[in-house]
């Protein structure tokens, strides 16, 4: 984690060199900046590689997430077929022509899964990000200002922690148009309290630290203190929170889609499941229709959870496996 700072430098440095080398006068020797840029990229990559491989759980989690991201980005390059195209193969079992069989309308489940991966990943990450922005803002503001502001925000956070998010999301989405956007907005507005609580507690413990007091004495404005001094110092907590939030959001979106709140024109993991349930995949014995989407949700969720547990272990050494060392220590003490 301590080695990650080089990576944010990469784009800015590269950008400067790019603008320099594109100037006509300097076109003669573009090699040095390019080489420097490459070196920085390599340093950044190795720092990234180091962070990813330092812990087995982080590595496994990143590999799973990476796989789905690659499928989402490049999976559709090889496929040129409408996922909602009707064919004459109805409820066909998996074969060479249809790797994951077809559903009752003759749609190819494998192609639906490819498209669904893209849609599901996109909306989960976007919604997760929205949740993070809401919870971080509320948590930071509440924790930083303290006093009456904190009292009010704490009550709001606690009240919404008590109200179960899924039922609230169902209440909210039933009145609006059935689209992915509705689901994303509703899920974002019902899933923020957890993160807000964690970030508030952390901010509260950080607001009277010396570096904050020093910056305040230097005449920094409150919003700068919050977002430029305190926020960067709890990046690890915010990152871990983003990972947990994304699992929650992934499951919430799939759940709402399963209930039929998704758009009928979009194909995502949740809407495939809804179709399977509603069109009697069970009675037809069409396991290839409902097993893949749920399995992918569980796999992606486990990837995120592994990443989260890994980050936890990195942050809290007591959770790490250090049995032999501890035992010798104890003996020495005794």
């Amino acid at each position: 984690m301590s080695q990650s700072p080089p990576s944010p430098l990469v784009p800015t440095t590269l950008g400067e060199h790019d603008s320099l080398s594109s100037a006509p006068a300097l076109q003669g020797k573009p090699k040095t900046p390019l080489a420097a840029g490459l070196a920085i990229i390599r340093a950044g990559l190795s720092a990234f590689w180091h962070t990813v491989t330092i812990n087995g759980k982080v590595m496994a989690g990143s590999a799973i997430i990476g796989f789905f991201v690659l499928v989402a980005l490049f999976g559709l390059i090889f496929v040129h077929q409408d996922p909602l195209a009707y064919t004459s193969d109805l409820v066909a079992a998996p074969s060479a022509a249809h790797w994951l069989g077809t559903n009752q309308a003759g749609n190819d489940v494998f192609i639906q899964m490819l498209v669904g991966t893209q849609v599901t990943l996109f909306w989960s990450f976007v919604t997760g990000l929205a949740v993070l922005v809401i919870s971080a803002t509320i948590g930071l503001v509440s924790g930083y200002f303290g006093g009456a502001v904190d009292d009010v925000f704490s009550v709001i956070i606690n009240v919404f922690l008590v109200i179960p998010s899924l039922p609230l999301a169902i209440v909210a989405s039933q009145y609006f148009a059935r689209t992915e956007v509705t689901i994303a907005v509703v899920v974002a507005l019902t899933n923020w309290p957890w993160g807000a609580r964690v970030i508030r507690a952390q901010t509260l413990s950080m607001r009277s630290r010396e570096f904050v007091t020093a910056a305040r004495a230097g005449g920094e404005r409150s919003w700068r203190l919050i977002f430029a001094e305190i926020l960067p110092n709890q990046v690890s907590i915010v990152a871990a929170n983003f990972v947990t939030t994304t699992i929650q959001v992934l499951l919430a979106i799939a759940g709402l889609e399963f209930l039929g709140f998704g758009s009928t024109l979009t194909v995502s993991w949740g809407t495939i499941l809804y179709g399977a349930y509603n069109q009697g995949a069970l009675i037809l014995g069409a396991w290839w229709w409902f097993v893949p989407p749920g399995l992918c949700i569980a796999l992606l969720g486990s990837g995120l959870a592994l990443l989260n547990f890994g980050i936890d272990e990195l942050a809290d050494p007591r959770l790490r496996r250090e049995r032999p060392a501890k035992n010798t220590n104890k003996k020495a003490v005794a």
Partner: protein
Amino acid sequence: MRHLIRRLTIYLLAVWAAVTLNFFLPRLVPGDPASALFFRLSQHGSVSPNLLNALKIEFGVDTKDPLWVQYFQYLNNLLHGNLGVSTTFFPNTVADVINQNIRWTLTLLTVSVLISFALGTLIGIFMAWRRGSAFDTTLSSLMTFFYSLLYPWLAFVALYFFAFVLGWFPVLGGGYDASQYTPGWDPGFILDAAYHAILPAFTIVLSTIAGWMLTMRNTMITTLSEDYVMMAKAKGLTSRRVMFAYAARNAILPSVTSFALALGGVIGGQLFVEAIFSYPGIGFSLFQGIQNDDFALTQGILLLVILTTVVMNLIADLLYTVLDPRVRQERSA
């Protein structure tokens, strides 16, 4: 006592917020929800024009009363248990539907949550005690997978595998065999109901147990490194006593807190499980309500779910006071 009063205030505010959102959300929607629903219903088949009026009355959009008057009328209705008429189960009122189905839901919920919490916590204790062993590593990675399962999917797969492929359970689900039994205190019916409940309960236990297990394992590991645990071991106490009376007794506190917070999610998950198994609880009614745009029914059920969660939270708080002497004596709150 001060702690409890503060929690109580939060719970009352939560109920008020839920009720208020319930009132204002349909009024926020552009246009008028009654006409929108009437339009959608008329696309499915012919409907009597009287329905539009009925819907308008139900949504409270027929009156010229100012919003705050409508709001207090709505609160008054709620206080008298008047949740409106269900369009799905017409002419039953929402209160009737809930009344008929709530016992199924509560029985299934209580049994499965208790099994899941007790079993999960117990296994978590052993996992922490034997941490690093094959038992711990295998279960840890397996639980990570179960942790992120989608309830309805697990229910779907369980129903497919155990009922459709193996034929151990009825494929159609349901709460009991309606052709043979009528609900009542007759042993045949109770056995049949228990038989129908096995698979749904199994699904709920399987999808919730991971959370308890991992929470307990992690807090237990932290507790095991405390000095008093080492002291207890040094005194020569049996490992069973150290494990349960010293370490687990203290490690269970965070589990109780997360129990309360997770309950909302568990109840939400059970709604799905009931829908898949056509289990005659409020979850199945909710699913039918959503499919039929039966707003009064879904609103009523969701209010009830929120209310149940709040009450369960309160119970967990009381339990917490019993378990943690620090809270009782106001030393930390």
